[in-house]
């Protein structure tokens, strides 16, 4: 059974059709990429799946449950985590505290438990801290735990956001252009982190422009162009698909002009 099933999702902004009847399935354990030229509707799709936007029509089902229109904070609790194209870090907090904030959905202490420092709140807190340290090691940021997020070099900010998303203990990770702005060494590091994430059991959907990275890590790819799905399949087939080549050639011609 598919973990995420997108069916006929359409999103209209005013008169503009950002997504036009898009359907696809993401299976448990895969790295699934969504690619397409600028304005293809990738970000809109991400926002819909993560609850930051709602489809005009169509359905999004996650683990067999309809989730379209649910608020983001609820979706995180049911196991959908995301990163942002423009990183949304807590700049004035340390790297460690950023990741610790990610444990919010998997911890429970409320105002009363925290105020009274009940034993279960303290135990939970200790576990959350251990988990945050573990995740920092996993993405290779353990040396930066006390650095403020705003002081972190650009290349590491995306890794921090990945670690924070992992702290929510997701079944599905949505990564919005994780390699944007990274140099090739940093991209290599990212790829190895993503493999570790997959091996830890999370399914990933990635929006990415770096084709080398996409072709390398993806199990399956869907291609969007102007809101429509124009191709779907494993990297080998996508690379040869005439519709995909044309869509990208069209974009490059447009860029050159």
């Amino acid at each position: 059974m598919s973990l995420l099933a997108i069916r006929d999702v359409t999103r209209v902004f005013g008169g503009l059709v950002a997504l036009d009847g898009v359907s696809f399935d993401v299976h448990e354990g895969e790295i699934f990429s969504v690619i397409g030229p600028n304005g293809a509707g990738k970000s809109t799709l991400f926002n819909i799946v993560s609850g930051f936007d709602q489809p005009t029509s169509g359905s999004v089902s996650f683990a067999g449950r309809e989730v379209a229109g649910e608020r983001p904070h609820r979706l995180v609790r049911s196991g959908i985590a995301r990163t942002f194209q423009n990183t949304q870090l807590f700049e004035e907090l340390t790297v460690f505290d950023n990741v610790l904030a990610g444990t919010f959905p998997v911890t429970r202490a409320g105002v009363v438990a925290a105020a009274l420092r009940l034993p279960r709140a303290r135990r939970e807190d200790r576990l959350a801290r251990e988990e945050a340290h573990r995740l920092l090691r996993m993405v290779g940021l353990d040396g930066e735990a006390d650095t403020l997020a705003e002081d972190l070099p650009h290349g590491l900010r995306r890794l921090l956001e990945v670690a924070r998303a992992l702290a929510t203990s997701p079944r599905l990770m949505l990564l919005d252009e994780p390699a944007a702005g990274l140099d090739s060494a940093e991209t290599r590091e990212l790829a190895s982190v993503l493999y570790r994430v997959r091996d830890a059991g999370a399914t990933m959907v990635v929006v990415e422009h770096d084709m080398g990275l996409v072709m390398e890590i993806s199990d399956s790819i869907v291609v969007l162009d102007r809101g429509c799905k124009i191709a779907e399949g494993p990297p080998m087939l996508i690379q040869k698909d005439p519709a995909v080549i044309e869509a990208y050639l069209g974009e490059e011609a447009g860029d050159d002009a």
Partner: protein
Amino acid sequence: MSDRTRRFAQSGGAVLAAAAVLALPLVVTDRYLLKVLTFVGLNVIIVAGMAVLFGYAGQVSLGHAAFTGIGAYTCGFLTARAGWPWMTAVAAAVALSALGGLALALPSLRLRGHYLAMATLGFSVIANIVFVEAKSLTGGNDGLSGIPFASVGPVRLDTPWSNYLLVWGAAVVVVALVSGIVRGRPGRAMAALQGSEMGAMACGVDPVRVKVTAFTLSAGLAGLSGALFASAVGFVSPTSFALETSIILLAMVVLGGTRSVAGPVLAAVALTLLTYIDGLIPGLSKTTVAALQDWKGDIYGVVIVGVMLFVPAGMAGLARAWRRKSRSVTGAGEAA
């Protein structure tokens, strides 16, 4: 210093400070000074709640004097006119203020932007009109007098010393509870929210819920302070809960700084003592005291504007920056 030892030192320091505060009546015998210090404690209770609201949840309130008023009038009316036992009346006062906070915050926080600040200003003005006009409940401009001292069973707290201990005992407990909240999971959610609302949502934080919780909590604590004020002073009138008082409270949290409880609490102590400076320095001339009273509005205005212009994170922010700097220096030393 490692995280653990620092925390240990911090909690040790906090316990010592609490003990010193509660032992103060052993050395201070001046009744006026004790009264002044009792007022300081009352403000500490309000400001501890506002520290959560402002410094962690990132919301401005101009209505906290009104919540204090609700607590004071509720406790005063229930004990003086309705004959309720003191404890029950205080509980009712806290509950009513918190409920008022909830009712105000829930709708205005669903909106983006800072409508809550304006809504609290409106609430503050309405509350003051009600305090003046609902004469059968509040005594109008003449106020509500004859409020009995706090009493639990046969024990009546009718000396300045016992009231000092009551108020500061409550303040110590409140500060301890609030510190637990901000250091724990709810505080992390609030700090996240202030850092990036979208980022916080991606961490499973419900922004409305967190802000409403912070507002309700702070309104309830303001109500507690008001209830204690009513029973310690025995008299309540509308002027104590005017808009100006709310702005003074805001000046305290702003000066104290963001993401800290200790900062605003210290600022509350300092700014409250400023207006009662004569209790602290007995030899002070009458004209100096009068001038300070006369210019306190200007002082608070300058404090608010000045802090926001030059150190928006307040004293706590300065302390954090300083700590980071000294740590990075020692870090570099160890590396070398």
